[in-house]
Structure formats: structure tokens, C-alpha cells
């Protein structure tokens, strides 16, 4: 693999970590990669985004109902937060926590506002990761699974 390419990938990852987009969990996932699952991290991220879309939908719906069921909202968000923790989406999780605090306070406006932030972080991370994996794949056939080691 092109050394520069690898470096580029590593830098990107470093940046994501430093900026708090990702945390140690992401590194953990990378460490799980092996011959059986060479693209494990990417697979997990893909699974996460597929599933989280559904969870966000639930929250969206719950937020739209009147009166708002904060307990339900809290549960949904809890679910989403748990899912986000699987790939180490730190920023997303932070917003989730904030959201749940608003739920506890039964603050509808706070919830709605924070939810927007959750979605934003969620989408933003997705883009960055897509770039990251694209870069990894470009590095060569095996680059995608081994970059970052």
C-alpha cells in the first residue's frame, strides 16, 4: 500500500479522534479485524447507520406526537445512544445524553432542539466515515481492512 496513502488515512483517523467524532471504541473495532473479518469496522459502521436510521425515525415520530411521551422518547434515545456507542460515535452520544436530560425535564423544546443536533452529528460523522473508508479502500485491496493498524 502506498505509504502516503496509508499516512493520509491515519491522519484522517487521528483527526476524527482528536475532534471527538470518534473514540477508543472505534480503535477497538479496528483491532477486531482479522482475516475472518478484514473489513469489520466498515461493516459495523454500515450496520450502525442502517439501524440508526430506524431508531431516529422512532424518535422523530415520538417527538411529533402530542402530547409528547417523554418516557418513550427517553427510551428511544437510550436505544439510539447505545447503538452509537458501538462504533464510538462520541459527539453523537453527547447530544444523546443532552437530549435525555431534556426528556427528564420534560422540556419539549429542548428535546426538539437537541434532536436536531443529534441528527446533525449523526449525518456529519457518516460523511466523514464514508470518506475515511473510501480512502482506505483506495489504498489497495487489503488496505480497507488493515489501514489504521
Amino acid at each position, binding site marked *: 500500500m502506498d505509504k502516503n496513502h496509508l499516512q493520509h488515512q491515519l491522519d484522517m483517523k487521528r483527526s476524527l479522534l482528536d475532534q471527538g467524532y470518534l473514540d477508543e471504541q472505534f480503535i477497538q473495532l479496528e483491532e477486531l479485524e482479522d482475516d475472518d473479518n478484514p473489513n469489520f469496522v466498515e461493516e*459495523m459502521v454500515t450496520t450502525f447507520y442502517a439501524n440508526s436510521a430506524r431508531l431516529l425515525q422512532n424518535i422523530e415520530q415520538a417527538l411529533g406526537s402530542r402530547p409528547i411521551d417523554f418516557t418513550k422518547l427517553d427510551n428511544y434515545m437510550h436505544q439510539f445512544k447505545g447503538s452509537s456507542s458501538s462504533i464510538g460515535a462520541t459527539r453523537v452520544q453527547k447530544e444523546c445524553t443532552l437530549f435525555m436530560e431534556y426528556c427528564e425535564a420534560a422540556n419539549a423544546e429542548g428535546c426538539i432542539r437537541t434532536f436536531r443536533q443529534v441528527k446533525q452529528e449523526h449525518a456529519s460523522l457518516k460523511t466523514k466515515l464514508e470518506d475515511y473508508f473510501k480512502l482506505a479502500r483506495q489504498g489497495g485491496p487489503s488496505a480497507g481492512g488493515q489501514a489504521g493498524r
Partner: protein
Amino acid sequence: MENGFSSPRSESFPAGLRVLVVDDDPTWLKILEKMLKKCAYEVTTCGLAREALNLLRERKDGYDIVISDVNMPDMDGFKLLEHVGLEMDLPVIMMSVDGETSRVMKGVQHGACDYLLKPIRMKELRNIWQHVFRKKIHEIRDIDHHESFEGIRLSINGSEFSEDCIMFSGEDLTSFKKRKDFQNKYDERDYGDLSSTKKHRVVWSVDLHQKFVKAVNQIGFDKVGPKKILDLMNVPWLTRENVASHLQKYRLYLIRLQKENDLKASFGGIKHSDVPSKDTSGGFGLQSSIHTNQNDVANDRDQFSGSNFYGQDLDAKNNEGDQEEIVSEPRPDSKKPLTADVPDPQDTRSSQMSFDHSSASLGSDVNYTEFDCSIPKQYPWSECPEVQSKQEHKLLLQLEDGFSQQPPGVPQHYIEIDQLQSGRDTSSPIKNEPVLVEYKSHHESHISPKETAIDNFSVQSKSLIAYHQSFEPSSTAIKSMKPQAVDLSCITDLEPCQRNLISPSDLTFPPFNEDLTVCWLQGDFLNKNFGLPNMEFADYSDPGFIADIPVHLYDTLTSDYECPYDPTEYPIVDQGLFIL
């Protein structure tokens, strides 16, 4: 560790540990699977709690440990935890992204052997085998204690068994010396054999249990004792110890059933925080867990008549004095103690159980009255809720009064209940119930009287009902005196823990020990299960089910002595469980 524990998969323990992972999040499920595989464990994944239960039930000895997320769509993780603990007696690890103390506490109360926070690191998973190992050690020790020596062929490590590991049955004391040889045997043993220790236990089939019940009936509950039962049953290969532990479980089980039933009805609308009194009042935990379960595990708030049952107060109050308040079972001083209805119930109770807390009037008096009145009408299991509603009403009233004073001790409740009972059709078994209940909740001798009272009450009615079902299937009223005897026996069980326990008629049960804490906690599960509206259990009103119950129960019958009430061994009332 490594030495001697060889799994059937011909790898050395803990490799090959059979783990069942339950998580509704597909990402986590895959990640955990990968991590566990890297630990050389044998992994099975499951996205639904019900599916997990089915898997576990299909292959009773198919798994060594269960890891489950707390939040799941089809079933609350805590509930699953209960089920697994009760039915399969497997160690369960809970997971959650929420590390709040209350949640963790709840997990522990429900019997989780560990609580992991997400994101989970692989190193945390590497060590989960310790929970399996620990359980095995305890099991073996328990087996040693009350199973015939011949039945014991496993030994984890000769050094684990010190002198205090008494060999009962005394069948063959010489074999005791062979303990040292265990090391050899155990080297040859597969790890899987550890779980097969259960095979050496008595399996109480439906038939066997029927005989047992028949024998108990014949003898009369107040006179029942393992030896008598054994003689009557006339089963040559059965030992007195087997019967003793079965009897213990049976009693406790019935009590729990009753309690659960009562609680379900009475506390249907009452929510308790999931944080029962931390230290002292075990009862809190008991009750809270019960209520929580019944009402909605997700609800951590205490909504019990507005009084802060467990929630905030709980944290603030850890001592006895506080507990009373926490219990929030207001016992209005103004309320006429049960004594009014039933002369001097307090004394009885006191004698039965001495608690740090004054037994307090806890409005339970009123409760009991209600309860008592309704019991006769309630009889059929399925009708329990009716009573409950009355009781609940009373309870609510009481609660609102605020928990004023701590009853002199749980005993009061008992007494009251007892008195109440005697004054009515219902028999005295109730008396016993409270004791047990209190014991459970009060294992640390801190029981909020109110709580106890209420618990007792429900337990009583339940046990009464239960007993009737088992002993007099055709009966629809709790009138026989039999339950009373049973209860007395039950009291016996609690004796060690109680300060002033009524001398039980049957002193065959070993003293409680700390294990009981865990036991009753887990037992709560059982109760909860029964009381839950969405119970998937068999029809309560079916008298036959009781006979069936033990079937499963004895799959794990062992550690009776250490924990008279081992919830894990109590079959949940689920016909589906009785898979032998």
C-alpha cells in the same frame, strides 16, 4: 483455573465457554460476537429476549453464561434476567449504555452477576468466565452439603474444599477422604461436567412431586417434616435431604406465588423506584423489585402513593430509622392497628420476627383487615386480584399517610395478619408468609414494617391460595389449616435471620446465611413474574400446575441449604417450563 477444567470441546477452560448474547442492537450483537469469539468462546447471538429464552429452554445445559442488554423491545432485560436466573440458574451479565447507579443496582438486585457499561471492551469480556466458575464452585459446595457423597463426583479443586465443607448424608464417610482424589477426577473431567453436576441431583418429576404433595397433605402441614414425607412417599432412592430441600423450595415457592399474586393486584398501580433501600431494608428491595416488575421496569420513579418509596429517600436513608420513612408505607398512627381487628397481632408478629424497625403499625393493619376479608373470597388463584384491589386501596391510603413510625418489628405484621386470619375463614398460614416475606426483604434485618406488612399480606394470601391449590385442588376457600403448618415451617426457614422467630414446627432447614440475600432478591423475580400482568405463565387457577412446578425446579436443586429459598430453583409458573 486452567488445570482441570477441560471443556468438552477439548479446550482448556475458559476457552469454549458457551455464551449466549442477547441484544436488540444489531451492531452491538455483531461486535460482541466478534469479541467473544476472539476470547475463544463459543458464541450464540440473539436479537430478542423471547428468542433467547426459547433457546435457553430448548437446551437447558446448552449455555454457560448469558449476556444481555438491559433495554430490549420485547421484554425488559431485567425480566429476562429473572427468568434466566430462576429457570436456568445461569449467571447473567447485564449490559447498558446507562451506568446510573440505580440501574446497576437494579441489575444486581435482579440477580445479575455483573453489569457492564457500553461501550464494552474486550478485556471485560475476557473475564466473564469467572462468573461461571464461581457459580460452579458454589454449586459444588452446596451439593457437598446436602447430597449424598456418591452423588458428588466433581471437585473443582481439592483445596477449595476445606474442612468446613461438611459432607452430609453421612452415607459414606470414607468417601470423604477420597476428596483428595478429586483432583485426579477433576482433571479428567470436562468442564462441561461441572454443569452436569445437576444431573446428580434429584429431578423432581411431576409424578414424584405429586407423591410429595400427597404425602405432605396426608401428614398435615403443621406436622410435616422431611422424614415423614420421605417415609410416606416410599421412594427408595430418595433421601431425606432431597425431600428436605424440596420441601423448603416448595414452601417458599408457594409463598412467593401468593405474594406475587397479591402484590400484583395490590400494587398494580403503584410504582416504586427501582432502588430499594440499599443496605438495611432488604425488604425494600424486595418490594421495589416486585413492584417495579409489575408496573414497568422502566419506571424508576417511585409513585407509590406519592410517597417516595425507594427513590430519593432511599438514598438518603440507609439506616433503620430512615428506612421506615423510606418504606413509605405510612402507617398512620391514627390508624387503628390491626390489633383492633385482631387482638394483639403485634405480639405474634414480634415474636415471629424481630426487626430493627419497629414493626409499626403500618397501616398494614388496615390492610390486613381488608386483606383478610377478601381472602376467602379470593380463593381461586385467578381471583386474587380482587382482593388485591382492596388491599391496594388500603395500601394507598396508608401510604398517603406517610410513613410515620416504624413498627416495633415485623413481627407485628405477622401477628396482625395472623390474628386477622384466625378471625376469619382464612387460615393462619398467612402468618408464616409474612415471616418469610419479611425475612426476604429483611435479610439484613432492616425491614420497613409497612413493607413487610404488605408483603406479608400478599404473601400470605398467596401462599394460602397456593397451598390450597396444591393440597386441595377442589377447594376454593382458604380455610384449611394446612397452610398454617406450612407457614410455620416457612418461618423456620427464616429463623436464623429473624431475631425472634417463632419456633417452627419443622427445624430441618438450615439457617439462613447471606446467600439468602441473593436468594430472595432473585426470588423477587419469581414473584414478579407471577405478578406481572403479561405473565406468560400457566394459568394460576390450575391446581395442577403446582404439581408441575417442581419439575423444573429440581433441575437445579442443590444449594438449598445455603439459600433456603433459591429463586433460581423455583420454577416459574409456566407450563412451558416444565420441560424435563
